[in-house]
């Protein structure tokens, strides 16, 4: 038995990946350790020689980053999961939102804030910004956005009632009983939300098996349960 496989995964994957890998460990008896952090942090750590065998990024740009530095095994890179972008409101909210070019989001907000993840950096924020731009809303709501450090923090703002509306992933919205999903952004308003995975160069022997398991149908239900879409190899 070699050293345990180390997965560097975007923090938002935690529930699903923990469950999947617990199953993997039970079946194979092999040890797996997962380090969850922001994709940018993980990417830079891999750049600095972190002992990661598998990298699962929350977006393509940080996978591109490590890819560009020649740090991953290109052949193993795959977009494994997908997610949807949704608009949420506190559970007891009476607001109804119809997403479209004439949604008048700014009026809907009034003096309140729209909670999002960082719109310049965090993937969820970037996607949201692209969607709002495409829908012609960005200009008017730009000054009313409360940018949180990550999606979870944005969700908390809505969940706590600090913000009447927020843009988060479907996976997050689903898990929080204090919010309700009021609308889903059409897939064509933003680039596809994908989670690429790849083996890091010089990965351990067991890593390939672990990655294969993550991408396998056997594991797919762990991810679907949390609201991810599962992207079969394309």
């Amino acid at each position: 038995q070699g050293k345990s496989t180390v997965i560097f995964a975007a923090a938002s994957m935690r529930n699903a990946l923990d469950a999947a890998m617990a199953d993997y460990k039970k079946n194979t008896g092999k040890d797996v350790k997962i380090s969850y952090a922001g994709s940018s942090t993980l990417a830079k750590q891999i750049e600095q020689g972190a002992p990661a065998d598998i990298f699962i990024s929350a977006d393509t740009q940080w996978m591109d980053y490590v890819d560009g530095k020649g740090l991953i095994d290109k052949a193993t890179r795959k977009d494994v999961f997908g997610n949807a972008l949704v608009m949420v409101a506190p559970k007891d909210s009476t607001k109804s939102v119809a997403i479209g070019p004439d949604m008048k989001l700014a009026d809907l907000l009034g003096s309140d804030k729209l909670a999002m993840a960082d719109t310049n950096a965090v993937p969820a924020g970037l996607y949201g910004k692209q969607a709002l731009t495409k829908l012609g809303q960005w200009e008017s709501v730009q000054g009313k956005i409360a940018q949180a450090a990550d999606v979870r923090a944005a969700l908390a703002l809505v969940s706590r009632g600090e913000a009447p509306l927020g843009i988060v992933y479907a996976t997050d919205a689903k898990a929080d009983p204090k919010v309700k999903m009021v609308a889903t952004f059409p897939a064509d308003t933003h680039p596809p939300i994908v989670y690429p995975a790849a083996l890091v160069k010089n990965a351990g022997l067991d890593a390939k098996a672990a990655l294969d398991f993550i991408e396998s149908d056997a594991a797919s239900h762990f991810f679907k349960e949390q609201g991810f879409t599962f992207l079969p190899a394309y």
Partner: protein
Amino acid sequence: MWSPSPEEMTAIRLSIRVASVATLASLPVALAVAMLLARGRFPGKSLLNGIVHLPLVLPPVVTGYVLLLTFGRMGPVGHFLQANFGIVLAFRWTGAALAAAVMGFPFQVRAMRLSVEAVDRKLEQAAATLGASAPIIFTTVTLPLILPGIFAGAVLAFAKSLGEFGATITFVSNIPGETQTIPSAIYSLIQTPGAEGEVLRLALVSVAISFVALMLSEMLARQTGRRWASV
């Protein structure tokens, strides 16, 4: 590349404002708590001491959540403040200042407490025999003698405010011009591939501001604290 963008300038100005207000506004409270901890004898002293240290012990994000739960618009204190005094902290720079103040609080208290404990109480006794009342003794004897500790505490709190990020962004999020301080701006940049240069620039600005603050406090401390020392 070395001159900050207008948006960055806004963040810098805001950071300075937040750090200054946080430091100055929490100073009297910290001083009172430091006096209590150094001099007081009361049940629950250890508890108070523990609470003062909480913002250190908890991850900043947790502190931010606690602030959000308490001082947010829906939080009990936040609601009360808004309803009765029209004070809103959530999503405002005042909230950023509150977060910074809370995060810097333990350092202020500790530095002041150390100085208070070093004061020779015989001098305060002498002042009392000369007719000075407790508040007068405090301002004319104790306070001047603990100035080094106050400066040290203030500088620590100010520096911490400049660097504070986790609690701030969690509590008041990151609204350019309102709550986006230097660290929040840096955080955004760090998540962006290829923005290393900008990160460096903003970090250097922080460092420069804190150097000025440091020098200032050292100067003040030298002028007061050590002027009366014997050679």
